[in-house]
């Protein structure tokens, strides 16, 4: 009998395993399939975007156009102005879509909002970015590409009715895939997804989808563009004994990145002030200024790949290189912060090439002979890593762009040191700091979900006030009832708080109770406003070692927020996120 039961059990287990395996297999096949589709879609989107930019660049490039129509090049310098007018028009027509710009919007969508990116938003950014970059703005295609790829990932997930957890996975995969396609660099695309979108979360389940989609997108890119290299790199020599110069260049890259960020920050502050006053869009006068600069220095026009190739081909003198470097930095920062659509990867490559090349030339004045081409490539990695906080992506991207193993060691040094220089000074990456400005702190290992919860939403009206002049023994009777008291002056203006914790010591001696009034032992706690975040309230409670905080409006207390309510809200949000991630809504 036992033997029969054993055999039956064996068959039951085998059948169960078979179905379980089949279910897993179905899951895996679907994941691979959808990743391939999303990769291909992101690749096609990126190629469409690339084609549109290239078409505009060739057709209306000031230097190209004047050759055919015999129009002086300075007339055609008006192209960036036309571009600016179109961008302003698009932004004013679709303000909602326009506000969700750049890589940080993809990060937010993936890590915080967990909601699909609408297809219209994706298409808007495709058009607006193509206009920006096609009319000569000195920005790069990667920010928009990530937005387009992530948007396609999100949209296709919604077509398949996938749950939020899977939608997030494929948004990341789409963003990385588009980067792979646009730079023809699949490994860099994968690491872009990890370093930028996932903020270095290597345990994230999006990884396999990201790899598959990147490969798929790169195949589309290679089929469309062929194996044409983005950069034409002449022969160069890397001498490993020049390690000290590599390190020095890395530090220079870090400092230049910091200066750029500082300039960018100043421009952003000014732009916000101007925008508040609702004056004419700053992009228009900026484009006029840019047009004037383009008349004298045509090479600052556009994304910068042509400039990179010209620098590497040794077409410029030191003086011209210095002027181009200054102009590039200023106009990139201006365009980036004043409403144009574009990213900082390609501009970083361009600035890096100029920094590295100038570094080698400058040192030659002191009798040090270095190969400027090699140092330009090292500078490219250093600047890409420093400015975008992506050391691994930078190493891989330079390797994939140069296809030369010799640059790996110096680029590794330059990328890591430049990145460390920037993060040491800034205490965070450029994306983390941008999100922090919006009140989202992602620098800790987990997202501080409480940053997006206002105290108003969890405040309680269950509090009692007491006059600061009231005897403590009177307050003690009230405290036994309510545990917490708000102390106010004769005009009802908030003074501080009293809780059982504060008076516990006074209870040790009844004579002390007789001696004191509330004012003597009030805790002058900095209250919070209704719009403050729960995270901020929690920080203040920790600072004072208390378990509640008054909420004030015009110096009058309107409510209190309790420590236990914040923790309860935190747990609730975490459960909601878990439910969204692991709920069986779709596949």
């Amino acid at each position, binding site marked *: 009998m036992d033997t029969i039961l054993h055999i039956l059990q064996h068959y039951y287990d085998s059948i169960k395993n078979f179905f379980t395996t089949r279910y897993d297999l179905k899951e895996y096949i679907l994941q691979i399939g959808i990743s391939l589709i999303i990769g291909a879609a992101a690749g096609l989107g990126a190629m469409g975007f690339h084609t549109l930019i290239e078409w505009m660049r060739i057709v209306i490039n000031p230097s190209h156009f004047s050759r055919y129509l015999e129009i002086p090049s300075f007339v055609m310098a008006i192209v960036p102005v036309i571009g600016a007018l179109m961008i302003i028009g698009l932004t004013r027509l679709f303000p909602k879509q326009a506000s969700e710009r750049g890589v940080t919007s993809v990060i937010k969508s993936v890590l915080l909002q967990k909601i699909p990116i609408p297809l219209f938003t994706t298409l808007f950014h495709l058009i607006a970015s193509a206009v920006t970059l096609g009319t000569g703005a000195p920005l790069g295609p990667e920010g928009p590409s990530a937005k387009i790829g992530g948007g396609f990932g999100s949209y296709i997930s919604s077509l398949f009715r996938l749950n939020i957890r899977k939608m997030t996975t494929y948004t990341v995969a789409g963003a990385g895939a588009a980067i792979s396609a646009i730079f023809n660099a699949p490994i860099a695309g994968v690491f872009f997804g990890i370093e930028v979108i996932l903020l270095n979360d290597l345990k994230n389940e999006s990884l396999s989808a990201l790899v598959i989609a990147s490969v798929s997108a790169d195949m589309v890119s290679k089929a469309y563009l062929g194996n044409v290299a983005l950069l034409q790199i002449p022969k160069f020599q890397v001498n490993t004994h020049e390690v000290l110069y590599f390190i020095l260049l890395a530090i220079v890259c870090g400092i230049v990145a910091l200066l750029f960020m500082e300039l960018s920050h100043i421009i952003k502050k000014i732009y916000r002030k101007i925008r508040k006053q609702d004056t004419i869009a700053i992009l228009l006068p900026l484009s006029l200024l840019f047009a004037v600069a383009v008349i004298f220095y045509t090479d600052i026009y556009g994304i910068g790949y042509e400039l990179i190739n010209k620098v590497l081909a040794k077409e410029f003198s030191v003086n011209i290189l210095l002027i181009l470097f200054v102009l590039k930095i200023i106009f990139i920062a201006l365009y980036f912060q004043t409403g144009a659509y574009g990213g900082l990867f390609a501009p970083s490559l361009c600035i890096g090439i100029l920094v590295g090349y100038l570094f080698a030339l400058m040192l030659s004045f002191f009798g040090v002979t270095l190969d400027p081409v090699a140092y330009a490539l090292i500078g490219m990695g250093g600047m890409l890593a420093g400015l975008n906080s992506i050391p691994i992506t930078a190493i891989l991207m330079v390797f994939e762009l140069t296809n030369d193993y010799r640059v790996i060691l110096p680029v590794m040094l330059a990328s890591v040191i430049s990145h460390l220089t920037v993060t040491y000074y800034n205490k965070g990456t450029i994306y983390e700091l941008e999100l922090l400005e919006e009140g989202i702190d992602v620098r800790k290992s987990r997202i501080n979900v409480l940053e997006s919860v206002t105290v108003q939403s969890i405040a309680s009206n269950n509090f009692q006030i007491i006059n600061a*002049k009231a005897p403590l023994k009177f307050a003690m009777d009230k405290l036994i009832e309510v545990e917490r008291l708000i102390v106010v002056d004769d005009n009802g203006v908030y003074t501080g708080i009293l809780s059982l914790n504060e008076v516990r*010591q*006074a209870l040790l*001696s009844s*004579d*002390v109770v007789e001696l004191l009034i509330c004012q*003597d*032992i009030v805790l002058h706690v900095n209250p919070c406003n209704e719009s403050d975040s729960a995270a901020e309230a929690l920080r203040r409670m920790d600072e004072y070692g208390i378990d509640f905080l008054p909420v004030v409006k015009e110096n009058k207390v309107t409510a209190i927020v309790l420590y236990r309510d914040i923790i309860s809200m935190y747990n609730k949000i975490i459960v909601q996120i878990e439910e969204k991630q692991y709920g069986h809504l779709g596949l």
Partner: protein
Amino acid sequence: MSSLLEFTDTKFIKFLKSKNKYKAIEELADVFKGTDVCSDIKAFINALKEREEIMTTGIGFGIAVPHAKLESVHKIAFAIGISKKGIDFNSIDGNPVHLVVLVAAGERQHKEYLKLLSKIMSVLKNDTIRNEMIQAKSSKDIIEILRTAK
């Protein structure tokens, strides 16, 4: 809580001449002038007076404990004032005050402040100690009394 002697000094003990409670507070608070206890004596005196106006710190038995927590107080301390003739402090028992214990604490020294006040009150509750302090001839005598007080 450490010994009371850690919070006072012979320099902080004064035989008071003033008969008015506000003048007595000013006279006694002046002992902190030029010390590391308080950097703004004027603000400290004002805080003590304002507090006194709200409710008397004359708790009876010939004792008053004026006190204030202030940003400019850097070190928690107390001063002792002896008035042989007595000061009208509007005490709760209506008797003149012979022993003024003035307590200074920093804005955030909440717990230490309450502990010190409790300790002072528990020592002054003892009739013998209280009378010995009022009868003391010098600052050193008062320090000695506090040293032996438990």
